[in-house]
């Protein structure tokens, strides 16, 4: 291997890796480093939780299978180690479930916001939540309209 990477370099490359901006050689070195360094591997996984907002330029559309109605029918959660196979089965299941939801009509589309099904609060609240009191500094704003094409309306 031509260029071994150190931890500092690997962590500096998180964003470029996420955005697929690394050269293939650099990418290989990056992945090799992560495979051999649990610290950087863990740091990358932490990074990956916020990266979809922080470092991706597109927001994926909410999919139909994310809606509570469809998810009710999703098979029970399987152990972590079986993730990949489970995920693939679930994809197929989701496709047929989405088709059914489509046929069911507007209801599934209406329920586009995911409802909570798992509660990790007990686990999370074992440590103190890092929060502040709510301060409402501003009153509600007035709505004005501005057309998609840049013109004013109303």
């Amino acid at each position, binding site marked *: 291997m031509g260029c071994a990477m150190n931890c500092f370099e690997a962590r500096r490359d998180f964003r470029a890796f996420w955005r697929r901006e690394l050269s293939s050689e650099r990418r290989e070195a990056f992945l090799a480093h992560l495979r051999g360094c649990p610290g950087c591997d863990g740091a990358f996984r932490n990074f990956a939780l916020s990266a979809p*907002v922080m470092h991706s330029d*597109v927001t994926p559309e909410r999919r139909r299978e994310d809606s509570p109605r469809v998810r009710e029918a999703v098979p029970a959660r399987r152990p972590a180690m079986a993730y990949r196979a489970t995920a693939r089965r679930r994809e197929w299941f989701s496709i047929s479930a989405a088709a059914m939801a489509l046929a069911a009509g507007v209801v599934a589309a209406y329920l586009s916001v995911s409802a909570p099904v798992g*509660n990790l609060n007990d686990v999370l609240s074992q440590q103190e939540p890092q929060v502040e009191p709510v301060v409402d*500094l501003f009153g509600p704003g007035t709505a004005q309209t501005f057309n998609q094409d840049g013109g004013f309306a109303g």
Partner: protein
Amino acid sequence: MLAIARSVERRWSATVKPDQELIAEALNGQAGAFAELASRHRAPVERLCQRFFSDHELARDLVQESFLKAFAALKTYRAEMPFAAWLRAIVINLCYDELRRRRRKPEELVGDFTEPELDWMQLVNTASPEDIVAAAEERRNAHDLAHRLLDMLKPDDRTVLVLKDSEDMSVSEIAATLGWSEAKVKIRAFRARQVLRKHAERMLSAERRWAAR
């Protein structure tokens, strides 16, 4: 080759008016000039609003409000600054104010996760880095969960983090835009990364314990 490039450039400059020209036309009351300006700058404004808010409706409202504000303040615009940077400052201040206005209650921040969110956390815990990146691109719940995580930050911290790490703004640019000292920007950025890392660790280790039950 050079000739082709020049002719393309000529055609481009013949058809595309510079921002400054559109601004002058808009100030002269020419209909459509500001609309063209807005449509030209809409994408980065939308992207920035979406980094602050997961709610599409709200993000869209903020985009519209940003352009309304820009239109109303167009007379104050000075050509020494690129229009995009001037507009961005308006967007940032609107998003920051909205963030402070919408500061959620502590109990809303952590707790219930949806099945797709749990799936995504499980994938982040167990899949290879390449698979994580590929999966994030098509999962809306990855985006939603990232917003939940970022919602745990104080508005000041989140704003600085977005501007510095996502928008690549310098400390001095952020300080000038928000009217803060550079020291405050640096402290907030440092703090934001620390808090974010702590919460991400906590979420992932909670998911591991959840999965192991």
